């Protein structure tokens, strides 16, 4: 790679936003280079037999390798922090970022970054949600563009579910949902049999719409209900960004370069000049492009721009939005003593939306998981008792355990630049909000409502601010600041530089952001190609 290398379109990042943007540009006839570090761990993935969890447990003598990892990295130690759900075959998602990117964290902040192929999308829980028009407008997104992009993205990535409030924008064009397991089915049937929403709060509950296939399609098979989603997906039934990259890899107009970390970007006449390092050798590289779509993730994009001459050199602090997140370990007590017999997947079984009747902004989003393939020792370590007694207790309750993830509306922390680097990534510090908006009263009402459904809270785990792994708003569009982004998501003063991730969003609703992120990336690709509106 030399300084004179010139490209038409460069996409930075291979996550959900980058993959969708690259795909859309190719559809529009553009020539695209995608740059990413692109770390992966296909060898470990390949060692996992394509068998149901229960079968595999009794037959595979090598299971320790992928359940615990060769260095026992699958055994959690110390306090639960962000990424505790990453089993050894998925730990590559954060591995390179933890080694290469210098990031200080304030007190109770717990952040995950990724330099993996597929970015944080490689560990995505696959739950899909659409934002309301009001939420899109508040975020600074054009509802007309995003609503039409939702449909295109869903067709591309594959999904399943029933029409519901969580995906109200998708109508009834989505394939049938995956079957619920016994545990979730019992909660849902109780919810449907009880009188609805008598209090000032209202709760919606239903099967979680997922980016997972209930019907096979070209190159991918329907979800096999093996309860192995935290470890493997040999049938490619759950969407990952790398499936799009595989699909476009043979396109004559597409090329991808892995092992490259972008560290800064600057305007050079009518072109954009990207600079970075080879992550393996450390050599500096440069290239130029007419158009660049930055899709390095909200934190990654801010890190690049704050390190960029002429763009962020006077920017010492940028905002950062993240959904406060905690999870409740709950006992579905009416099912106590009943065996779970049905084959199941280990993605979220049910979604919930809980809000004050008169305040839509107060919405809290819930995801209900059953617990089995994450193994019992992780439960036992949370019990204040000797291991053998704890194991007996875990065996008594595991089939009636429900883990409820609780996401609140995004609150604003900060990214503080510690040190710029000419030939490497900037060093940054991430700080949680100083005054976290408290929704304790609302969460108490929620716990009461769930108790009415037979769910008793055994424990609450709060891994820290940022642990939702939902990030946005680092370069808010239209907001005064050193780095300014316009309504078409171009960086001011750089007509060739577009932001294709969640960095420009001004708010972060409680519902999962990934589908909207992909829809946004698609519409930004159209703007960059001059094809929008």
């Amino acid at each position, binding site marked *: 790679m030399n300084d004179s290398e010139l490209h038409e379109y460069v996409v930075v990042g291979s996550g959900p936003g980058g993959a969708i943007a690259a795909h859309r540009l190719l559809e529009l006839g553009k020539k695209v280079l995608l740059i990413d570090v692109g770390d992966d761990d296909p060898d470990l993935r390949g060692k996992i037999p394509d068998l149901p969890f229960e079968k595999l*447990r*009794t*037959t*595979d*003598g090598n*299971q*320790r390798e992928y*359940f*615990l990892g060769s260095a*026992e990295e*699958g*055994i959690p*130690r*110390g*306090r639960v922090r962000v990424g505790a759900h990453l089993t050894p075959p998925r730990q590559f998602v954060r591995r390179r970022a933890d080694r290469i990117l210098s990031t200080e964290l304030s007190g109770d902040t717990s952040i995950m970054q990724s330099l993996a192929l597929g970015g944080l999308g490689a560990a995505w829980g696959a739950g899909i949600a659409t934002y309301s028009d009001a939420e899109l407008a508040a975020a600074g997104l054009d509802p007309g563009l995003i609503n039409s992009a939702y449909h295109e993205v869903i067709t591309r990535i594959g999904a399943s579910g029933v029409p519901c409030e969580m995906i109200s924008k998708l109508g009834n064009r989505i394939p049938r949902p995956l079957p619920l397991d016994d545990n979730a089915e019992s909660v849902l049937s109780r919810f449907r049999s009880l009188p609805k929403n008598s209090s000032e709060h209202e709760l919606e509950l239903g099967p979680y719409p997922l980016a997972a296939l209930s019907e096979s399609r070209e190159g991918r098979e329907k979800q096999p209900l093996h309860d192995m989603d935290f470890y493997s997906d040999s049938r490619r039934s759950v969407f990952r960004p790398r499936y799009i990259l595989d699909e476009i890899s043979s396109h004559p107009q597409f090329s991808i370069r892995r092992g490259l970390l972008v560290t800064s970007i600057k305007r050079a006449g009518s072109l954009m000049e990207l600079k970075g390092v080879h992550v393996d050798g450390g050599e500096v590289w440069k290239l130029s492009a007419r158009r660049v779509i930055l899709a390095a993730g909200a934190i990654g994009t801010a890190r690049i721009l704050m390190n960029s001459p002429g763009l962020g050199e006077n920017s010492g602090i940028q905002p950062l939005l993240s959904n406060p997140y905690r999870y409740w370990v709950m006992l579905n*007590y*009416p099912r*106590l*003593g*009943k*065996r*779970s017999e049905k084959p199941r997947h280990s993605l979220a079984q049910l979604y919930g939306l809980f809000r004050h009747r008169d305040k839509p902004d107060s919405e809290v989003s819930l995801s209900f998981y059953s617990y089995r393939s994450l*193994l*019992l*020792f992780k439960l*036992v*370590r*949370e*019990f*204040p*008792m*000797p*291991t053998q*007694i*704890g*194991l*007996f*207790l875990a*065996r*008594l*309750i*595991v*089939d009636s355990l429900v883990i409820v993830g609780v996401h609140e509306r995004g609150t604003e922390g900060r990214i503080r630049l510690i040190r710029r680097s000419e030939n490497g990534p900037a060093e940054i510090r991430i700080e949680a909000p100083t005054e976290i908006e408290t929704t304790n009263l609302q969460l108490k009402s929620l716990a009461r409502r769930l108790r009415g459904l037979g769910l008793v809270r055994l424990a609450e785990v709060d891994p820290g601010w940022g642990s939702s792994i939902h990030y946005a708003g680092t370069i808010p569009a239209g907001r005064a600041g050193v780095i300014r982004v316009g309504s078409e998501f171009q960086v001011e003063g750089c007509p060739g530089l577009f932001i294709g991730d969640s960095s420009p969003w001004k708010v972060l609703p409680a519902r999962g952001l990934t589908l909207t992120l992909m829809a946004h990336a698609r519409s930004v690709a159209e703007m960059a190609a001059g094809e929008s509106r």
Partner: protein
Amino acid sequence: MLKSRLLYPTDEEVARLARMECDPGSVNRFTPISFGFLGNLVAVILTGCVGLIAALILVPVRLFRR
């Protein structure tokens, strides 16, 4: 301190249990147990009480080992 160090299993005890759980020969020791609703309810209450008392008894031992 009391919560994180003394009542709960140590990292080494958890690691031993994890290794055992990933041994195909020990799978039966990790399968769900079902005595029916009342049976499991009584067993959960008794196990919880016994477990907590055992953990409290073990506190001096753990303190001595540190």
